[in-house]
């Protein structure tokens, strides 16, 4: 297949990718602090309110979403505390991440043949799915972490995409050969690095808490994660799969991944569990999407 750009050596690609990562703006302080406390089980609502009230833009955005039709409050919500309670802390993290990383998550992914907005939709749906699975199956993982892990899991695609451009058909052909290799293997075979590793580099650049960094690095290979973080990684692994089954992916790689059944060591979905979850995720996703992006 003809390529328009000269084929770069793997080392050269690795170098360019780390340059791109180091040029990504750091997360605003308010977001780093929010992610930091959500990783701890002992935080209180007051902690979240204290962080958010320091950021006027974020605070007013939260109030706007809480009062939107999709979240249909019984009466007008005027205090930040009420707003956060009504939306749930997960949505607050989502709004915070979404508002400061829009230029990353809204990129058109040319190498994945995915249009602008699809990466964010996929991540939001994965976050909702991971939260729903956690709520119904797992007692040990906080739903906040599962949600934020889902939001961030594929962030590496925004950076790696540039280097997959013009290789899309080669990548999909590798997945469709039926030899068991998935899109992650194809990325690695093709350019020497995959979107999970690129995302991990970005997680370190952003100083994300270790659990979230592990989610990003291992979401397609949860068995390789540190046992202490494995359950969370499996929850996002399944959330990702349920989002793709629902048709919300990022183009060429959608569904071209292996499932790791090791999740059964941590939780069970049950016979009707899967359809019930898929339906719930569909409804929650539609609601969240219309609320956060109706502005």
């Amino acid at each position: 297949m003809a390529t328009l750009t000269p084929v770069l050596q793997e080392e050269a690609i690795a170098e360019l990718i780390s340059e791109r990562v180091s040029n990504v703006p750091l997360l605003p302080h308010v977001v780093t602090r929010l992610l930091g406390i959500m990783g701890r089980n002992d935080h209180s609502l007051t902690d979240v309110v204290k962080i958010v009230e320091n950021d006027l833009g974020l605070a007013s955005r939260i109030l706007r979403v809480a009062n939107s039709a999709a979240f249909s409050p019984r009466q007008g919500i005027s205090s930040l505390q009420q707003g956060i309670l009504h939306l749930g802390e997960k949505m607050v993290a989502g709004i915070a991440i979404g508002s400061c990383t829009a230029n990353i998550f809204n990129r058109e992914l040319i190498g994945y043949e995915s249009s602008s907005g699809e990466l964010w939709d996929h991540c939001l749906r994965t976050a909702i799915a991971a939260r729903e699975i956690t709520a119904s199956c797992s007692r040990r993982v906080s739903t906040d972490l599962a949600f934020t892990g889902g939001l961030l899991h594929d962030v590496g695609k925004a950076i790696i995409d540039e280097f997959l451009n013009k290789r899309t058909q080669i990548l999909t052909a590798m997945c469709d050969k039926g030899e068991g290799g998935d899109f992650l293997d194809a990325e690695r075979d093709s350019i020497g690095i995959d979107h999970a590793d690129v995302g991990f580099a970005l997680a370190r650049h952003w100083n994300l808490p270790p659990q979230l960094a592990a989610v990003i690095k291992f979401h397609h290979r949860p068995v390789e994660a540190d046992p202490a973080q494995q359950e969370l990684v499996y929850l996002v692994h399944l959330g990702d799969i349920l989002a793709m089954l629902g048709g919300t992916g990022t183009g060429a790689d959608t569904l071209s991944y292996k499932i790791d059944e090791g999740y059964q060591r941590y939780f069970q979905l049950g016979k009707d569990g899967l359809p019930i979850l898929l339906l719930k995720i569909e409804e929650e996703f539609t609601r969240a999407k219309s609320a956060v992006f109706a502005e």
Partner: protein
Amino acid sequence: MGIIYVGVGELAASRSPGDVVKILALGSCVGVIMLAPQQKIVGLLHVALPDSSINAKRGIEKPGTFADTGIPQLLNELKKMGHLRGKLTVKLAGGASIMDPNNTFNIGKRNILAIKKILWKFGLGAIAEDLGGNYCRTLSVDVDSGLVTISSPGRGTWPL
């Protein structure tokens, strides 16, 4: 005249030449296409799950969600559009899955089986299908010509 998008759990029928009826990004969902060539009517249903018994309320509010409630509803819609008798051509697309050798997550396959069973009850069967695989599909049906086209990112476009 224009593009009619059929979202999850929705269905649509058209007999306006120039209309294109479309489903974007089918994952494990299945698109059921019904064509009445004599009357030039096209019907399209976007099924998400096999059976309404998991949520009867949703089956009433949005019958297209489930195979068992969606197919009768689509047939009704075609009747309303003017298909009272004559040939009905059925085509199916979608029902993809993740790479899952043990089929534990194969909701796509369960959708396909449920749809075929219900079609059979109405004496119908698909004459063309593009099902399964580990990729998503976008589906368009041209009302004028009855041509069905499938596309998938990174995999091109092909007729069904």
